[in-house]
């Protein structure tokens, strides 16, 4: 505890640095993986090559990648930009498959209906396909969020500062508490970001909450159907038919 009280500012600093490396990589992965996943799903014969390609990316060991990236794109060796690029490569490698699966999960009949009522391809993508791919995509984003946060710490080995620095430093100087602090904070950061991703999902996809919120407040025999003359008919058949999704769950 004495160590923590003495090094508190540095720990906070590393926490923020870790955050600043993770978030851009997660966002960049999402922005790159969605179009790639979409084309893998829709492009004729693209699915195989794209998924194999990103699978190979994931097979590259991380330490060599820290050397390869600066050579290829000219970023400084121990810079945060190198780190973010490396993290993005791994993020994309995982997320493209999720994104392809997410788009595959959108019912073809719904897309067909969207086109039939007059959506353009563009509006169909933004207003129908992407939102409906959302839940599966969100699951993928949660995976890469956690994996990215843990992967950031590897950078400490080649000298990119992050919470991982607490491991390398703690091991070298034999301060167990420092290592422990690093582990706890990385887990805490992962849990925090995962929670934020889930929260964002709830806000962006309110219809997925219906089992909890809206349906709970649904009253039996609430607003019903009106008969021809506007009076409310007795609706025994509707009561039976009113819970198709309830019955199927």
């Amino acid at each position, binding site marked *: 505890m004495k160590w923590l009280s003495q090094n508190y500012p540095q720990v906070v600093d590393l926490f923020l640095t870790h955050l600043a490396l993770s978030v851009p990589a997660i966002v960049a992965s999402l922005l790159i993986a969605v179009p790639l996943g979409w084309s893998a799903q829709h492009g004729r014969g693209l699915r195989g090559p794209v998924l194999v390609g990103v699978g190979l990316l994931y097979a590259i060991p991380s330490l060599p990648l820290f050397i390869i990236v600066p050579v290829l794109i000219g970023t400084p060796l121990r810079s945060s930009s190198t780190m973010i690029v490396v993290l993005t490569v791994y993020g994309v490698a995982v997320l493209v498959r999720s994104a392809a699966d997410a788009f595959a999960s959108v019912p073809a009949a719904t897309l067909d209906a969207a086109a039939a009522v007059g*959506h353009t391809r563009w509006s169909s993508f933004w207003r129908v396909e992407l939102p409906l791919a959302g839940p599966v995509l969100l699951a993928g984003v949660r995976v890469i969020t956690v994996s990215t946060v843990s992967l950031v710490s590897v950078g400490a080995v080649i000298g990119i500062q992050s919470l991982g620095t607490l491991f390398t430093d703690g091991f070298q100087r034999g301060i167990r508490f420092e290592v422990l602090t690093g582990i706890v904070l990385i887990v805490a950061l992962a849990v925090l970001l995962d929670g934020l991703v889930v929260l964002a999902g709830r806000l962006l996809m309110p219809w997925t909450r219906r089992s909890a919120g809206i349906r709970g407040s649904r009253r039996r025999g609430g607003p019903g159907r009106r*008969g021809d003359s506007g009076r409310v008919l007795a609706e025994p*058949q509707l009561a039976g038919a009113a819970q198709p999704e309830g019955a199927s769950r």
Partner: protein
Amino acid sequence: MIEFRSVRKEYADGTVAVGDLSLVVPERSTTVLLGSSGCGKTTLLRMVNRMVDPTSGTVLVDGRDVKEQDRVRLRRSIGYVLQAGGLMPHRSVLDNVATVPRLEGATRRAAHARAAELLEVVGLDPALGRRYPGQLSGGQQQRVGVARALGADPDVLLMDEPFGAVDPIVRADLQAELRRLQAELGKTVLFVTHDVDEALRLGDEVVVLRSGGVVAQQGTPAELVAAPADDFVADFLGLRSRQRQLSVREQDGRRLVVDADGRPVGVLEGSLEGSLEGSLEGSLEGSLEGSLEGSLEGEVPGA
């Protein structure tokens, strides 16, 4: 008016979905395309809003070749009701109904106000508008589907087996509702179904298709039943089935219509002034008049 001029649809593998078919769907009437699956009826329907382009031939809507029109504009100008509603599961009922006006650039507020009106038109409580489609019954979803199709106040309405996924009682209910709506709105409706009863109930004209998209017979329901063109039509309509061979039998002073097995399918009008109608009316309206009428007239046939 919708007009098909010798349209043909042939797929790359040589399958002919529609073979050289000509058909006119008159203004403000309901034409039903009736046939079993694979007879090309849905393909035909989807040619109207260019979801399918014919291999050859022309489709005209209100005299204009659809091929010369922008697909998206064309689709927005034509109402389309799909099986199981075809609703967007992630949008509220109100948003679903407001789809076309929103796509056409209406403000959210205006589109929602219009959508709420349309829900009433199709007999739904506007309070349902806040729900998601998955929270409605199958019948309610279908009504929402109809409301959405009416969104841009189209002249032409395409209905692709819209009531196929709901149970028979709700289906009969929706069919009655559609007839009421059609009497009120007078759209040009092209309706696809494989359900013979539905076709006879809803169509001003019924077109029976055989496989490969060929017209077997076209006519009013009464014409088809009275004079089926050939065995195929007679069999398809089930005219030889025992359920459609009806005769009249007297029972308790009323004339029952029974099928070939003696099973009752209804009562002849005029013989139903008795207690049945009276009590039905009475229970529906809850009015004294109905039951009075019933009990009074109930005496007559027996007397």
